[in-house]
Structures are given as structure tokens and as C-alpha cells.
């Protein structure tokens, strides 16, 4: 294992040298370490000191609030590495887009990852048309993905059919990437200029593996 990596904290210079491709590679490598029980034992204390006056995250991740998916742990990243917005069902709205614009335009992130996951409770709720308080409006955000996934006649479209649930979760990632490009002129311009890239991913809660879509 690489000692340099272990004690490395992003700086303005190191961040500026990275491309979106590098950022994705760093996340993929980190997930591999997590899977192989080879997570780095970082000196978090010195990372706190190094980042107290500024952050230079190399990537921004939109993921679910699910307690089984601590983003930094599954990607084996430390303090100051990834900007992370989390909402049940990992969709984008004005405030999440605002957060991502902050991450990329002001804090210099190179890559946006929209990450769904298997057995997502929010997606299951949408499949079952659950209604409860503010949740009803939130689950509406997942309905377009539900509508997109076609099934043969007689196939169970409820949360009992996990294969269906996971297909909806993948579709939900794709639709939110499209929504991001449509609804954020700031990010769309950065994408078109080649300053950032957006990529989808799925996390498998049974294996711990992240697959980029």
C-alpha cells in the first residue's frame, strides 16, 4: 500500500491537476480497497488540520440517506475528498442542484456521481404508491422512473419484486442525470466545456460493490 495516498489530503493544486476520468478512477480504486478490506487508515487528525481553512473535493456524489451506505467509507475516502448530497431516493431538486453547483463551480469538483442502490426503501415506497406526509410529494420524484420500466404482463410491479425495484433504481439514476443537465444551466455549461463530467452508479447493499453505469 501506498504511504503517500494514505497521508494525502486534496489541495487546490492537486485538485486542479485532476480530470473527471481521474476522479472516477480514484473512487473505483477506493471501492476496491473497501471490498478487499484494505481501506487506508488515514491520519484524520492531520486531515482536519489541513482542510480547516478550505475544501478541494475532487468529486461530488448524490446518494441515498440509507444507513447502509456511508459514502466516504464505501469509497474509502477521507476528510475533504468528496462533496456529498444525500436525500432518500438520490434525486435532484433545486437545493441539491444548488449544492452541486457550489461543489463544481465554487469548490472545483471535477466529477458528479449520481448513485442509486439495490433494495432502496424510497424506490420501494414509490413502487407501492405509499402515501404519508411529505413523503408523498417526495416519492412523486421517483414516479417517472417507475413509469419508464416496462414489464411483461403479469409481472409483479410492487416492492416484493426486488429485480423490478432495482431496475427502477437504475432508471431513476439515468433520469436524474438528464434532469441535472436540463435544470442546471450552470452545470450543463461546465459539462459542455469539458470542465466536469456526470456519471451514474449503483451500489449493491449485499456485496458492497459500486458499479458505474
Amino acid at each position, binding site marked *: 500500500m501506498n504511504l503517500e495516498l494514505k497521508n494525502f489530503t486534496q489541495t487546490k493544486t492537486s485538485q486542479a491537476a485532476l480530470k473527471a476520468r481521474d476522479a472516477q478512477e480514484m473512487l473505483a480504486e477506493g471501492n476496491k480497497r473497501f471490498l478487499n478490506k484494505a481501506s487506508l487508515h488515514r491520519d484524520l487528525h492531520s486531515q482536519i488540520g489541513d482542510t480547516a481553512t478550505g*475544501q478541494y473535493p475532487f468529486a461530488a456524489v448524490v446518494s441515498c440517506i440509507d*444507513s*447502509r451506505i*456511508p459514502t466516504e467509507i464505501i469509497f474509502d475516502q477521507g476528510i*475533504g475528498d468528496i462533496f456529498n448530497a444525500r436525500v*432518500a431516493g438520490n434525486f435532484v431538486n433545486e437545493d441539491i442542484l*444548488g*449544492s452541486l453547483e*457550489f461543489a463544481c463551480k465554487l469548490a472545483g469538483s471535477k466529477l458528479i456521481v449520481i448513485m442509486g442502490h439495490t433494495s432502496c426503501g424510497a424506490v420501494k415506497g414509490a413502487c407501492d404508491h405509499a402515501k404519508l406526509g411529505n413523503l408523498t410529494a417526495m416519492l412523486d420524484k421517483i414516479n417517472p422512473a417507475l413509469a419508464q420500466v416496462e414489464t411483461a404482463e403479469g409481472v409483479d410491479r410492487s416492492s416484493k419484486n426486488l429485480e423490478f425495484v432495482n431496475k427502477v433504481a437504475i432508471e431513476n439514476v439515468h433520469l436524474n442525470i438528464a434532469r441535472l443537465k436540463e435544470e442546471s444551466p450552470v452545470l450543463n455549461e461546465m459539462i459542455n466545456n469539458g470542465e466536469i463530467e456526470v456519471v451514474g452508479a449503483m451500489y449493491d447493499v449485499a456485496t458492497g460493490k459500486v458499479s458505474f453505469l
Partner: protein
Amino acid sequence: MTINDIKQRLEDGNERFIADKLDGKLNDTARRTELTKGQQPYAIVLSCADSRVVPELAFDTGLGELFVVRVAGNVANSSSIASIEYAVAHCGSKVIVVLGHQSCGAVTAAAAGGDNGYNLNHLLSHIAPALDATDDGADINTVVKKNAQLNATELINRSSIIRSFVEKGDVKILPAYYNLDSGKVDFL
């Protein structure tokens, strides 16, 4: 676990984090397998998307312990509220920590004002009440703390579900402040 046990657990975890003595427990394959059946996290953290504020590290928690809702400025918008309702009503979480942090960029941008484009303006508008409630030119960290407190209240005001759990004493909301320079969490 009682509400007090949970708060104690979070405080103990934060102490380990500050001392650089993380347990890093509950992140292994056995735990992952156990959790494929479902999750019962004992607490929810509403925190900023800032890359330096990582709730699972700051509280030294593993898989299945915390629901984490994150948006710049840790604001209680309708989707944060809905996410928290889900945690409280479906998964039995008992403590909600609304975690602001030192030198928050979103709070700083809100204080600076100006036009930041539709989405960022929308986000920063959630922080306006904290600016209104503090003196003009107040220190950013004073506004950050006020923002955590007001968003804690917002959870109760805007959600009848969260309100009823809090009124019954089944759920407690704790506004808190993360010190970027030490890693310490202060409950407000």
C-alpha cells in the same frame, strides 16, 4: 437504546474521532449481510454536503447506525423533511441531529447575497431566516449556529409526523455545531 444512550454514543464516537482512535466497527461483510434484511438506524443526521464534514467519521459509526441527509447549509427543505419522516415513521430512529459547521460556505454565500443563479438562490433562500435573526455583520459562525437551531424548529413546524413523535417524547431533535479545526461536535 434510550434517547440519552444515543446521545452518549454519539458523544463517545466523536471523542474517539477527535483522539484519532476510531473503532471503525460494523463496516465488515458480516454486518453488511445482516443488514440486507433491513435497517434500524438509531439516529438521523441532517448535515451539510461539505466534504470536510463526514458524519459517519465524526461520530465513528458503521453500517446501519445513522441515516444521513445532506444538503449544502443543512437546510430543512421538503425533501430533507420527507427523508427524516421516513426514518422516524418507518425505521424507528429516535434522535435527529441538525449539524451546522464552522465557516460553512453556503451560509457565507447567503450572507454575501447577490445573484447566484436559480438553483443556488433557491438553496440560499433557506438560510435567510438565520440571517434575519442575527445582527447585521454578525460572525458567520453565529449565523451557522442560528441556522442549525432554526432548521431544527422547522422540522417540527413543517412536519406533523415529526412533531407528533417529538411531542410524545419518542424523538428528540438536537441542533449541533461541528468545529472544522478540531473535529469536535458541540451540541447547542
